[in-house]
C-alpha cells in the first residue's frame, strides 16, 4: 500500500476515534479563558515595562501589592470565628460568600499564617498557609504544564481561584484600595477530589510606594503564591475530599 492509501486509512481510523469522543466537552467557560488570557497579557506588559524576565515567568503567583497605609497586625485575633458574615481579624478577613466561595482579604503584614490556616479549614478549605520559603515539606505540589520552559498555573487551580485578585470586589465595609490589600477568592467546590491549596505569603511585606502587581517593585518576587497540593492530614488537615 502506498503512502496515500495508508494516509487515507489512518485518517479514517483517527477520525472515527475522534468521533467516539463526542460526549467529551471542554467545560471551562470562555469568560474564564479570556480572564486568564487578559491576566497573562497584563503580566507580559508589566514584565516588559519592568524589564524583569522573572515577572511573566512565575505564573503561579496570586497576590497583590504593597500595603501602603495599613499597619501590620501585631496581635492577629485568631480566636475570632471564621464562618458567618465575615471574620474580621487584625490583618485579614475570611468571608464565605452566598454562592459558596471563600474570600480572603489581607490588609497588611501577615504575622500568624497558622491562624489564617485554621480559619480556612474551619470554612471547609483544605489548606496549608505559611510564609514563602517555609512551605510545609509534607505538602506535595501538583505541577502545572510547562510552556517554553516556564511553569504555568494548572487549569484546575484557575477554577479553584477563579478571579484574578485585582478583579475581586472589595468588601463594601472596608475603605481600602486595590493597592492596599491581598484579595483572593477560593471556590472549594472546584477543588479536584483529593486536592487542597497551599498558600504562601511573603513575610514582612515591605512598606513603600506600591509596585506592579503582584510583585514588590523591583524585587521580581511574588507577594503570595498559591499551588494545588495533594490533600493529606499532614499538609492540609483531614476530612475534605472535594465536592
Amino acid at each position, binding site marked *: *500500500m502506498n503512502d496515500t492509501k495508508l494516509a487515507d486509512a489512518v485518517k479514517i481510523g483517527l477520525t472515527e*476515534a475522534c468521533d*467516539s*469522543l*463526542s460526549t467529551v466537552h471542554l467545560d471551562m467557560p470562555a469568560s474564564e479563558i*479570556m480572564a486568564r*488570557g*487578559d491576566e497573562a*497579557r497584563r503580566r507580559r506588559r508589566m514584565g516588559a515595562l519592568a524589564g524583569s524576565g522573572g515577572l511573566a515567568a512565575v505564573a503561579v503567583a496570586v497576590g497583590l501589592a504593597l500595603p501602603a497605609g495599613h499597619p501590620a497586625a501585631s496581635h492577629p485575633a485568631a480566636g475570632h470565628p471564621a464562618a458567618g458574615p465575615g471574620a474580621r481579624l487584625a490583618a485579614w478577613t475570611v468571608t464565605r460568600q452566598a454562592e459558596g466561595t471563600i474570600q480572603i482579604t489581607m490588609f497588611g503584614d501577615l504575622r500568624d499564617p497558622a491562624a489564617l490556616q485554621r480559619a480556612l479549614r474551619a470554612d471547609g478549605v483544605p489548606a496549608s498557609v505559611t510564609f514563602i520559603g517555609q512551605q510545609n515539606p509534607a505538602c506535595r505540589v501538583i*505541577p502545572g504544564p510547562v510552556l517554553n520552559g516556564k511553569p504555568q498555573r494548572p487549569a484546575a487551580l484557575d477554577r479553584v481561584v477563579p478571579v484574578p485578585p485585582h478583579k475581586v470586589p472589595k468588601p463594601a465595609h472596608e475603605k481600602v484600595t486595590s493597592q492596599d490589600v491581598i484579595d483572593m477568592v477560593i471556590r472549594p467546590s472546584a477543588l479536584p477530589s483529593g486536592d487542597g491549596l497551599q498558600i504562601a505569603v511573603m513575610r514582612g511585606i515591605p512598606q513603600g510606594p506600591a509596585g506592579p502587581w503582584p510583585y514588590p517593585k523591583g524585587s521580581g518576587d511574588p507577594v503570595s503564591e498559591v499551588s494545588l497540593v495533594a490533600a493529606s492530614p499532614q499538609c492540609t488537615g483531614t476530612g475534605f475530599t472535594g465536592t
Partner: protein
Amino acid sequence: MEKDRREFEEFYAAARDHCLHVVLLSVGDRHLADDLVAEAFTRAWASWRKVRGHPAPRAWVVRTALNTHVSWWRRRRREVTLGSQDDAVAAGQHPGLDSSLVTALRRLPARQREVIVLRLLLDLDTATTAKTLGIPSGTVASHLHRGLAALRRDIPALDYQERIR
C-alpha cells in the same frame, strides 16, 4: 476590543471540543488534555490578533497544547517519582482512546505525531502544516512519510483494512 471578544468567543465555542478531542487522542489523559487545551486557548486569547490571522487557528491551538505537553512531560520525568498513577488513560469510557491506531500514534516521536495530527486529523495541507509547525514543507512530507511507515510497522492490519475498503 469588543469585536475581538466576540470573535474569540465564537471561535472558542466552535473549536474547543474538537481541539480537546484531538489533543486527548494524542495524550490519552482527560484531565491533562483539559489543562493543555485550556492553556492553549488562554494563550490564543492573549495573542488573539496574531492567532486570528493564522491560516488555521485550530491547528495553532492544538500545536500549542501539544508543545506544552512535551515541555510538561520532560519536566515531569525529572520531578515525579516512578510509579505515579497520574497518567491513567481514560480508556474504557471511550473505546476510541484505546484503539491500536491511537496507541501507535502516541508512540510516535512528537514531531511525526504533530504532522499526522495536523495533516490527517485537522486536514491541513502541507504548506499550512509547515507554517503552523515552523518547518519547511519538505520536512513535513518527510515526517509524514516516516510516521506512516512507523504506523504500518506497528499495525499490519492497516494494510488489510485498506485492501478491504
